[in-house]
């Protein structure tokens, strides 16, 4: 069974996707598709919240890179939330994901940064 959960909410022109559970090869691509589907073209930015994600593997990382590429192609901004010290955060650091999209500690920080622009 899939262990990944996805909850999408919209705050004005920003879409927030909470990815929970464990993101591995089983749920990675479908989760990516679901997130993209959840972002209307009218949206300015997407915040992917990995703060409550308990596990991520290389497929999950690949999905995140793919998401960044696709949003970039649609001129929409991507922000990622991950807790510092968390294995998920460690993996994102390791694969230098911050070169694809900025990483924040909390959803609020990400939203605040987006509202400043």
């Amino acid at each position: 069974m899939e262990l990944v959960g996805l909850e999408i909410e919209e705050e004005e022109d920003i879409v927030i996707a909470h990815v929970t559970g464990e993101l591995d090869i089983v749920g990675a691509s479908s989760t990516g598709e679901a997130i993209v589907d959840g972002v209307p073209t009218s949206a300015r930015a997407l915040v992917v919240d990995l703060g409550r994600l308990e596990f991520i593997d290389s497929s999950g990382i690949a999905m995140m890179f793919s998401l960044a590429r696709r949003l970039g192609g649609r001129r929409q901004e991507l922000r990622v939330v991950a807790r510092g010290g968390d294995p998920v955060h460690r993996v994102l650091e390791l694969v230098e994901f911050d070169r694809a999209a900025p990483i924040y500690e909390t959803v609020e920080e990400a939203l605040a940064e987006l509202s400043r622009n």
Partner: protein
Amino acid sequence: MAGLTIVLPHDPRVDDPGLGLIALAAAVLGAGLLRGAERAVMWQLHLALVLGTGMVALANDFTGQTALYPLLFSWPILYAFYFLERPAAAAHVTLAALAYVIVLLDADLPSPLVRWLLAIGTPAVAGMLIARLLDRVRVERIESRDRELLLQQNEARTRIVLDSAPDAFVAIDRDGSVRTWNAAAERMLGWSASEAIGKPLRALIIPPELREANDQLRRDLLDPAEADSTRVLELELQRRDGSRFPAEVRASRVTVRGEVFAAGFLRDTSDRLRREAEREALLRAQAARAEAERVAEMVSGMQQLVDAALAYRTLREMLPMLVTRLRGVLKANAAAIYLVEGREQLRLGAASGGSPAGADGAPLNFGEGFPGGVAAAREATLAEPDGDSMIGVPLLAGGELTGVLVLCAASPRRFSSDDLNLVRLAADRVALAIDHARLYERELKIAETLQRSLLPERLPRLPGLEVAARYLPAAAEAEVGGDWYDVLSMPGGRVGLVMGDIAGKGLAAASMVGRLRSALRAYVLEGHSPALVVGQLNRLIWTEAQDGHMATLLFVVVDPAEGRMAWVNAGHPPPLLVDGAERPRFLEGASSVPLGVLPYPDFRESSQTVEPEATVVLYTDGLIERPGENIDLGLRKLAEMVRDAPREPDALCDALLQALLPDGAPSDDVALLALRTIPMSDRFDVEFAPEPEALAAMRALLRRWLRHVKASEAEVGEILIACNEAATNAIEHSGVGARTPFEVSGCFEGRRVELSVHDHGAWRPLRKGEGGRGLPLMRAFMDQIDVTSTAEGTTVRLSRTLY
């Protein structure tokens, strides 16, 4: 007079022969009197007395006083003989003879005393004798007159009796002429006695066309040669006015003083015949009423039959009861119901009595045998195929043939067309009941299928954990219940155990279970706390279930890696925890109201440490509740059973069901779920199916093992990621559809963690693109990585020293 002869002067001429003649005449007269006195009539008596007087006078004249004496003595002698028995009379004669001798001795000159004795005594004796004779004659005459009077009275009475008799009495003589004709005959036949007597009877009362025959009858009856002197005849008679009536004649031949008569009583039987006819009509009416009552009884019996049938819901239960009752209501020897099966085939559904066709379970084709014939014709049939009377009626529901009802009556009983109509009525109801049952069964099947599909088909494989579950639908209520359970692999290697009970049954309950189950799985993946998950389920029931669904729910999350469990209980019986040597205990914790009762109830989470080896048991109330039994007793019993039962979950479940439901048929649904954690050691070696879904289970085990060897939170996370990459590769190496499992083993020595992932596929060094990050991740998180690839497969060894 004799005294006169004594006192008169006379000549003593004793020798005169005239005296002898007189004596002789007196003797004859006396003898005649003696013999004939009984029958003597008056003038004879008078004559005898006159003769006697004459003789005495003559004797006096002829004889002297002495010669007269014998005559005088003849009076007492006569007297004695007349009144006394002969011996006594003889004694008097002797006395008289003695007295005569005395008188002769003193005869010459009778003394004055003797003369006076004779003068007074003789008339006295004679007077008495005469008075006695006269009296006797008088009495006889009175008696004879009385007899005549009695006879006359008797005759009159007989006539009165005859006249007042209700039956006519008629007597005819040999010629057929009427001799007697009583009052009843007058009334009955219209002829008065004076008119009838002397006339030929045939002309009076026999209808003209019957006279010839009647004459013969009369001749036969009157023929003395015929032994049979009495006849009872049913005749038609004619009245004076020409009207006719049926009559019963009791005629007898009577012979009176040599003359032959025929006498008979005639009775008008038209009343009797009418009464008989009325009685017959009454009997017919009674029979008709009885038949009507019988039919009414059958109809009501049938109504009861259908009511009873509708109480049963499944065909399997209903059909045997239906045939038994049908057989009783229609008083048949055997009854059977066949059901249409597939195309043009019948199969015996149930039978009562006899040996119906198809009893061996083989289907009957339409047209085959009596039931098949009825099915083919689709018409109610009354027949006697093998001597027994059979009724077959098609069962039609909405114009569709669903079966055939067959009844059989053994000879000599034979079904009538009324019976056939009755069975038709019965068949309508039976068809209806069967249709209902079929519909119900269809719904039941759907609900059952639905519910079965809602229960986990198989439980997730959880390395380091053992789990078993049982679900027993209620036996009596052939309806799907609302009990359900689920076992969820949750993120972080946690295991979710769900046990729920939805109020209500049937399709609605089953579909609600479906909604709850999928909602719960979704909420769990969103990473919410158990209390929040249950709160969301409550919202779902509260807002979406229109018909006020209520459900109890127990949601337990076991985290074997952390050795903790948390649970939320919404009105459900508490979970049971068995660990170490301690007694099993119910985890009461915080309890909340069931789901669907309040819009925002406070669902609180309770938690509890779980020892490395522990068993959690979840169940529904069907396991512990017994009618009329305290629920605490049920709980206590359950705890005792769990204590004594084996720990292995499958064996535990079986033992519990065996002990608590020995009959195997619970009165309510029962769901039971048991989870056991297996203690970890420093080494592990587990095989996993080569499919991506196994990765989560692998991580759960590894996470728990790493916690067991006291790895830090960060170390656990990183080693998991590294090992997961190796395992992902192993699955990819095995290829799509591979069956051979891959193995993951672990070893902890000193502070060093050594992991090995071995597959049986071909090593592919690097995945391009997105997949290419596997090896770098492994390298980043582990101290050392070693890949060995042979023809048999690939082994990746990962090691890291813990802080």
